[in-house]
């Protein structure tokens, strides 16, 4: 090694390394997060093999049984881990599972398995450092089989027919009446758009996970974008309306739409809705069109569920041209 090179090491590299090390030591004392495990109030119940997978791969961020390793406590990683645990528990917490209504439990599980299938969960950066959280292809199959076995394939009972009949009469009367005034508004300011039923269809969908069926309508901007293949990203002004009904199936397997459940809108405006992935989300439930959500932040839930589609502009729908 030349004398000059030796000099360079001494003059630049060594001080540089010392500064970085010093910095790393210093930040250990800044804003250290406290890792706490609140009590488990109603743990998730499932067959042993299913539970073992979720416990190993998800419980660190989605339960009150977080296993914080020593290396998770080192800054700057500790900030990220603490943030993930906080946000993770907010969206899905297996330790307070029993507080969820049965249909909500099922919905969360299907969502969880879909997040795994899309490689969105467990969070990549976490999985790299914690290889034990990886969900293998055979693990995923165990989870999928568990969900499939829980499906109810029986013909609909009379309560579903009655629910439709009750709605239908009112709707038929209302459909003949004048258009509504004072439209319902979601907490983020999005107003119910009654015109959706005059739009064209983007696709239909048979949601066997939650026994509903859907028509997804698109406004003119959406339909033009589909025609021109300009759908990743979708242009500003695109609006989808996703209408969901109960499935009404007879003993021969003929399924028609039952009671109207909800209509959901996605409105593209990357400025106005920048904080929710460029989309304004709103959901109006039952023919009364009750806006969904308790606070303005309800759309975080929408974004979290749509996040596995971040490469497709957060849209699950695969449009059909017609």
């Amino acid at each position: 090694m030349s004398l000059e090179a030796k000099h360079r090491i001494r003059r630049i590299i060594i001080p540089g390394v010392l500064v970085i090390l010093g910095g790393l030591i210093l930040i250990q004392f800044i804003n250290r997060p406290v890792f706490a495990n609140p009590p488990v109030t109603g743990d998730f119940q499932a067959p042993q093999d299913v539970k073992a997978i979720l416990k190993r791969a998800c419980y660190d961020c989605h339960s009150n049984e977080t296993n914080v390793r020593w290396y998770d406590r080192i800054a700057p990683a500790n900030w990220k881990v603490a943030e993930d645990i906080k946000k993770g528990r907010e969206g899905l917490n297996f330790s307070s599972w029993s507080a969820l209504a049965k249909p909500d439990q099922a919905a969360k599980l299907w969502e969880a398995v879909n997040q795994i299938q899309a490689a969105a969960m467990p969070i990549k950066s976490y999985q790299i450092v914690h290889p034990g959280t990886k969900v293998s292809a055979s693990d995923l199959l165990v989870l999928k089989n568990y969900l499939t076995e829980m499906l109810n394939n029986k013909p609909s009972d009379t309560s579903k027919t009655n629910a439709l009949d009750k709605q239908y009469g009112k709707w038929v009367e209302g459909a003949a009446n004048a258009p509504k005034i004072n439209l319902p508004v979601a907490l983020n300011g999005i107003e119910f758009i009654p015109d959706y039923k005059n739009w064209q269809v983007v696709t239909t969908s048979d949601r066997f996970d939650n026994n509903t069926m859907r028509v997804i309508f698109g406004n003119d901007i959406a339909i033009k974008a589909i025609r021109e293949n300009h759908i990743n990203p979708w242009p500003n002004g695109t609006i989808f309306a996703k209408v969901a009904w109960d499935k009404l199936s007879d003993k021969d397997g003929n399924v028609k739409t039952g009671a109207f459940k909800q209509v959901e809108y996605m409105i593209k405006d990357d400025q106005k809705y920048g904080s929710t992935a460029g989309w304004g989300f709103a959901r109006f439930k039952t023919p009364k069109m009750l806006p969904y959500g308790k606070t303005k932040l309800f759309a975080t839930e929408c974004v979290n569920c749509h996040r596995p589609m971040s490469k497709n502009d957060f849209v699950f729908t695969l449009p059909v041209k017609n």
Partner: protein
Amino acid sequence: MKAIYIVFPALILLSAACSTQPNGSQLINKDASLPSSFNFSKMGLKVISTAINKKNATMCTLYGNELALKTAIAGNAPQPGEVLAMITWKQKEDEHWFGAKIPGELLSLEIIKTTGGQFENIKANYQRYEGKLLTLSNDTTGNEKSMRYIFAQQPSVMP
């Protein structure tokens, strides 16, 4: 501490750079799409209802013009001047959502146009287009039954 807002976006950018974003045409459901030359959307029809046949693993959507929709909602007998169209697909798995089936291979498009006078004088013209290219079928067996099925569909509730 907001340092995570600097460090982790950098990491995310890195990981995003390693995975590619599909282009628009890759996201179109081509199996289910209608030939553009058919100009179905130019007919300006509205959705009346949608249905699934589990045994055949098919799904269909029924469309109609304003009059057909009105008649169906009112529960009246067919009127002259109605246009009804039913598109049927084989179902396929939704690759973006485990738990959903979406239209797959395009099977048929049936169109009914009513003409003539009221009640028994009404005439219904039925045409059936089949397959990916929607070629007009000359086979008339089963037409009556198909028409009855289409006219019998109850509209889906859309408040």
